[in-house]
């Protein structure tokens, strides 16, 4: 089952204005750099982006925001991005803020065919507005629904031609659940190997969830908060 496409252009060829896209990553860690650059290049607009964060002003999803390509963001935390805050407060950008755990679980649910589940997160807050509340074990919970997307774009460390993926360290984050929840899931990887080279015991995302895979060209892997100690 060969899922390999030539390059990022080929992988993103049918992503058009107005679609909903999930993008893996936490801050700038584990984001699909090549595909984001391609979306910027394609100049498509009116995108709904589901991503935990919105990048920084000049990297990650911030690049799409700068060019006003995003109509709506569904995220949990969008600090560290002045342009985002400006567009949101001015009303140019629709924003749906979701508790991080609910965002992760809603993506997983979307991929797993679970249309809705109960969670305690957000009860009694504005997140719960319009949502069903039910008590379990004496504790109120709200009903959250599944999220899916026309395209999910994820970034992995290693991948094989069958679409199996291995992530590195905390660059895993939202990538595995989003890979499950895309109608078409596109994976970009740092190292693409033939099927059979990855240990089937060590694979994080089974290839069944991935429709297209390609090797990314370069990775800047920008660090958002470089914190070090001295020897």
């Amino acid at each position, binding site marked *: 089952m060969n899922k390999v496409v030539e390059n990022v252009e080929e992988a993103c060829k049918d992503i058009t204005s107005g679609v909903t896209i999930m993008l893996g990553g*936490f*801050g*700038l*860690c*584990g984001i699909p750099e090549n595909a984001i650059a391609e979306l910027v290049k394609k100049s498509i607009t009116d995108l709904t982006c589901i991503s*935990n964060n919105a990048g920084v002003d000049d990297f990650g999803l911030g690049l799409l925001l700068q060019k006003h390509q995003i109509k709506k963001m569904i*995220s*949990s*935390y*969008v*600090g*560290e991005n002045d342009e985002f*805050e400006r567009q*949101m*407060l001015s009303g140019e950008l629709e*924003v749906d*803020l979701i*508790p*991080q*755990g*609910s*965002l*992760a*679980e809603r*993506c*997983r649910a979307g991929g797993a065919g679970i249309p809705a589940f109960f*969670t*305690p*997160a*957000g*009860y*009694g*807050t*504005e*997140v719960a507005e319009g949502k069903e509340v039910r008590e379990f074990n004496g504790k109120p919970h709200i009903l959250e629904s599944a999220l899916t997307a026309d395209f999910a774009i994820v970034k992995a*460390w290693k991948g094989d031609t069958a679409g199996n993926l291995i*992530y*590195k*360290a*905390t*660059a*895993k*984050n*939202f*990538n*595995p*659940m989003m890979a499950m929840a895309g109608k078409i899931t596109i994976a970009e990887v740092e190292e693409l190997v033939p099927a059979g080279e990855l240990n089937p015991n060590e694979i*994080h995302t089974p290839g069944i969830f991935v429709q297209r895979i390609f090797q990314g060209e370069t990775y800047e*892997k*920008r*660090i*958002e*908060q*470089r*914190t*070090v*100690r*001295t*020897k």
Partner: protein
Amino acid sequence: MLSKTEIAQRIAQELQDGWYVNLGIGIPTLVANYIPEGIEVEFQSENGILGMGPFPFDGEEDADLINAGKQTITALPGAVYFDSATSFAMIRGQHVQLTVLGAMEVSETGDIANWKIPGRMVKGMGGAMDLVASAENIVVAMMHTNKKGESKLLKSCSLPLTGVGCVKKIVTNLAVLEVIPGKGFQLLERAPGVSVEEIQKATAGTLIVEGEIPEMKL
């Protein structure tokens, strides 16, 4: 009056051996520097690591290894990486014994507000709503008053809530307090040199003072 570092130091006394702990950004992060002797705890960061270690040495940063504050970190022996759904399964499923986080306001019924100032600051709640709705033990680390000198311990919160009735303990620069549902903030300890009257003055919500209030030990 405690410094931020001393607030962290006092909170570290709450740690118990064998606990998994999630530390929020800011003062809570400093708690990791004051783990009491003979106690072993493991730090969870909700972006996907258990067994978080100190910052890396200069030149050894790995862009793929960060904490929830997006800071470069290291992993200790026995560490493990996982995805965000698994991370919040740990949190929501109450496998994390203690959450320490900052707040803009806390109410005497345990409500907490720390994510939004309407029309002004909208960064998002991140994992805070999941953490406060799920944790069995929540300790809030904050200044007793805001920059304008107004109390952050209120009868009810004025800002959009992060969670309802979830805060158990508060450690501020002035005091250690416990939320007693239906009653108010019970004063447990005073910061060195701070009087009950000063704490009373800085507390807008109901303050419960019973008997002699000891000075905290650091």
